[in-house]
């Protein structure tokens, strides 16, 4: 059995993947929900039926050319820490992390595809890309899905399209989403009107880990909600348009903050640096919120010589499971707060205090 930790690339490597607009768009993802014809949906199927479905789907997915080099495992073979790491990497949902016998996971080496078996549906397959690449992610998952439909007998209805456990996913079964870092809109107090207008367009805005989670570190997830009565291409195009607009609003918000309230911005960034570089105990949540401000500082060129990937790496490695993984002993939350602070201080040792104002050449 392959070990998920030796399989996944290091956090440092994973944060060095670049894509268009990755200052603001951290990643793009397209997920498809599919079910096979001759079994009940996972939430209703009994254990033997779920196991049977897993035994049909897992080999079919693993045999795809895209999955030639992949990690393929039943969820009951993964420990709680492994599962939490996968959640922190956004490779599985929190719901899937709670699954055991009869559920499975196939993820490829480059972490561009992740297929959850027997989550809410028999199949939840997703393509992930860094930056704003929703179209590319859709093309990738479309290809994977077309290959898989040769091997599996999908539940499809002429009127209703792909049949899913929850009627909210019916039709195309598609969820197109992007993770956005929006500190400018939050600091400029424009985030709520933006969320409201995005909601009015039938799109959902959620926190870092999707449904029902808070926007830690000013990271928001924007996705489509309607799946029936609109083609995948139309949904992808609509979301892309909205994302480009949000990017523009965020850039404008940063610009106007620097013009109208520079002291407020520098105060936030300076304090964030001050705490991160000097704290001896810090929670995961506080770390994320402060790292978000440092990331903004890097974007505003207040930390010359510091790359955004350093901040992004800390964003990942300071989360509970990633932090625990680096230690040999199982620690309590309080003990982890001490280790987390030590780690952040150490990594920021060579990062100088933020500049008092951005370099003149800066266009931001």
């Amino acid at each position, binding site marked *: 059995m392959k070990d998920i930790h030796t399989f996944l690339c290091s956090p440092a490597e994973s944060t060095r993947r670049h894509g268009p607009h990755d200052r603001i768009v951290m990643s793009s993802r397209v997920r498809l929900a599919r079910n096979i014809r001759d079994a009940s949906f996972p939430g209703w199927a009994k254990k033997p039926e779920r196991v049977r479905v897993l035994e049909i789907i897992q080999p079919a997915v693993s045999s795809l050319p895209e999955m030639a080099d992949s990690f393929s495992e039943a969820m009951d073979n993964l420990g709680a820490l492994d599962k939490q790491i996968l959640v922190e990497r956004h490779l599985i949902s929190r719901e899937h992390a709670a699954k055991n016998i009869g559920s499975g996971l196939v993820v490829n080496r480059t972490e561009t595809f992740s297929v959850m078996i027997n989550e809410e549906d028999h199949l939840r397959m997703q393509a992930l890309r860094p930056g704003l690449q929703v179209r590319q992610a859709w093309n990738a998952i479309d290809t994977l899905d077309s290959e898989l439909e040769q091997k599996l007998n999908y539940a499809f*209805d*002429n*009127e209703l*399209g792909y*049949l899913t*456990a*929850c*009627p909210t996913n*019916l039709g195309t079964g598609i969820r197109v989403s992007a993770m956005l870092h929006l500190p400018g809109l939050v600091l400029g107090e424009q985030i709520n009107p933006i969320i409201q207008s995005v909601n009015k367009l039938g799109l959902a805005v959620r926190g870092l880990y999707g449904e029902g989670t808070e926007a830690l570190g000013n990271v928001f997830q924007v996705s489509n909600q309607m799946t029936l009565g*609109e083609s995948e291409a139309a949904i992808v195009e609509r979301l892309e348009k909205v994302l480009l607009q949000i990017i523009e609003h965020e850039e404008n918000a940063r610009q106007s903050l620097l013009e109208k309230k520079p002291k407020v911005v520098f105060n936030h960034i300076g304090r964030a640096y001050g705490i991160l570089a000097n704290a001896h105990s810090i929670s995961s949540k506080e770390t994320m919120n402060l790292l978000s401000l440092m990331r903004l500082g890097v974007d505003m060129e207040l930390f010359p010589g510091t790359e955004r990937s350093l901040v992004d790496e800390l964003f990942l490695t300071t989360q509970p499971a990633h932090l625990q993984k680096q230690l040999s002993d199982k620690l309590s939350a309080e003990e982890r707060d001490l280790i987390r602070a030590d780690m952040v201080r150490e990594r920021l040792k060579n990062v100088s205090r933020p500049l008092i104002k951005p370099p003149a050449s800066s266009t931001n």
Partner: protein
Amino acid sequence: MQCSICKEKTATVHLTQIVGDKMQKLDLCEECAKAKGINDPVSFAMADMMLGLGASQELASASAGADLKCSRCGFSQADFKKSGRLGCLECYHTFAEGLAGLLKTMHKGLRHIGKTPEALRQTREQTDRLKLLQKKLKKAIEDEDYEVAAAVRDEIKTVPGAAAKVRVEK
């Protein structure tokens, strides 16, 4: 703010329901909310939480009170009320009537547009074409335009799988 049911006590429970593009607001006092089962987490259906208020009623009213059960997987209306999810693909037929109203409120349309598995693509196109032709045929007969009707009937015969379809229609 006054409770919209008893119109006496102060409303402390506020509900917002969106049906189609209309938003309805309901302000209730604690007693009335309890009477309606709204602040009782057990009877307050998950289906309603996830799919919008009235989702479970929608399904219940469509079956005129009888507790429908899926003949294939045994999933019942009550199960849907609890989980907000269905049991199997057949449930979409079993609960079709109740689901139609629900789907209308949460989606752009009631008919799938977009990707279709290649193996089913042909049959889907044929079904669509047959439906269109049958509509034409009906209209022609109603209009007593038998020349057109005959032509359409002949065209229907050329669609593969039409014979089977015609039998079903009878």
